[in-house]
């Protein structure tokens, strides 16, 4: 959101199509901040070429298990003997499936997990390449909106406050420009609070259709069509749909952010030690740190991969337009 602000740093979205491409840029020293899968971030902090730290969460929940609408599956138990696509072997979605396997008494081989690129999951489900997939939005909603898929579980119902992606920054950036990291973290925190609890004032750069000022100012301009809605979530859907961000149909993002409203949440994004340690325990058990196992002689813990200080260091106001400026 701060890209639309009048002052301060310009945080520029750099969109990737795969996790390896992103981790390659981080390890190559050309990318210093990214939203990335939580366990993958831990693996990078433990085994990567460039030291990184998790400094904030990106959101909570916002992941679902999807099956075909015409399939007979009503419970995870029904998926015994089937194939399921997961976004990455080091994803918290995989950890969730391992937890469900324990809860439902599955043996190791009773469901086959396949690494699959998230944007391709809906079409592959429709084509019958696997029976289900687990993914972050908007690729769960995509199957619903297109009419062939249905949600078997929202993560909010089976692992409340589920953590998928986290914000990592390189230790180099922390050391050279901690104020910049604080500005980014506090901007994300303030944006999340606005998304979940804000009023209908428009964000800077956002305009209602037919109410575009003669001199809209610098930066990207976003037009909200009549009837779309102007709540913070609807504004966010229009902003995120822009080509430089998600480049998705705004109606799909509107679905994600409203059906139901707690499908994905943007508050409580501070790093909680117990939650991260739970993910780490599963990551260790599943062998995520195979190149450098965690031992008593070579320990690894919350303080090695998390730095919660930036969220705690202050609050940042958002560039909202005055209510009478509509």
């Amino acid at each position: 959101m701060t890209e639309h602000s009048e002052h301060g740093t310009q945080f520029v979205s750099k969109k990737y199509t795969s996790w390896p491409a992103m981790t390659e840029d981080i390890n190559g020293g050309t990318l210093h901040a990214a939203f990335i899968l939580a366990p993958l971030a831990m693996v990078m902090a433990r085994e990567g070429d460039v030291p990184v730290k998790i400094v904030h969460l990106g959101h909570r929940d916002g992941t679902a298990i999807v099956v075909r609408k015409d399939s007979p599956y009503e419970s995870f138990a029904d998926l015994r003997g089937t194939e399921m696509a997961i976004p990455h072997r080091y994803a918290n979605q995989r950890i969730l499936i391992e937890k469900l396997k324990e809860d439902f008494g599955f043996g190791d081989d009773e469901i086959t997990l396949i690494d699959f690129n998230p944007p391709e999951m809906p079409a592959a489900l429709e084509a019958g390449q696997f029976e289900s997939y687990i993914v972050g939005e908007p690729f769960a909603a995509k199957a619903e909106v297109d009419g062939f898929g249905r949600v078997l579980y929202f993560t909010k119902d089976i692992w409340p406050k589920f953590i998928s992606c986290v914000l990592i920054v390189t230790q180099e950036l922390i050391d050279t420009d901690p104020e910049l990291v604080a500005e980014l973290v506090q901007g994300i925190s303030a944006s999340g609070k606005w998304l979940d609890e804000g009023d209908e004032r428009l964000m800077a750069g956002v305009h209602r259709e037919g109410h575009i000022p003669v001199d809209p100012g610098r930066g990207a301009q976003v037009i909200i069509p009549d009837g779309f809605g102007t709540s913070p979530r609807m504004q966010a859907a229009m902003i995120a749909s822009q080509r430089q961000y998600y480049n998705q149909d705004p109606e799909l993002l509107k679905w994600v952010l409203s059906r139901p409203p707690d499908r994905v949440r943007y508050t409580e994004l501070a790093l909680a030690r117990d939650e991260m340690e739970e993910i780490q325990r599963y990551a260790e058990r599943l062998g995520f740190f195979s190149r450098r196992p965690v031992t008593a002689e070579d320990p690894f813990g919350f303080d090695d991969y998390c730095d919660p200080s930036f969220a705690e260091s202050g609050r940042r106001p958002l560039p909202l337009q005055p209510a009478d400026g509509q």
Partner: protein
Amino acid sequence: MSQSVRLLTAFVLFLGGITLAHGVLNLAWLEEPREKLFVGHLPVT
């Protein structure tokens, strides 16, 4: 003052002027108000 000293003084003043002008311009560039940081993400939550 000899002709050569006058020429040298003029050249030094010229160099000084160029350096000062560059300094002012550089300062102006440094004062560009906004820093830029790329933040990587996939189009997925």
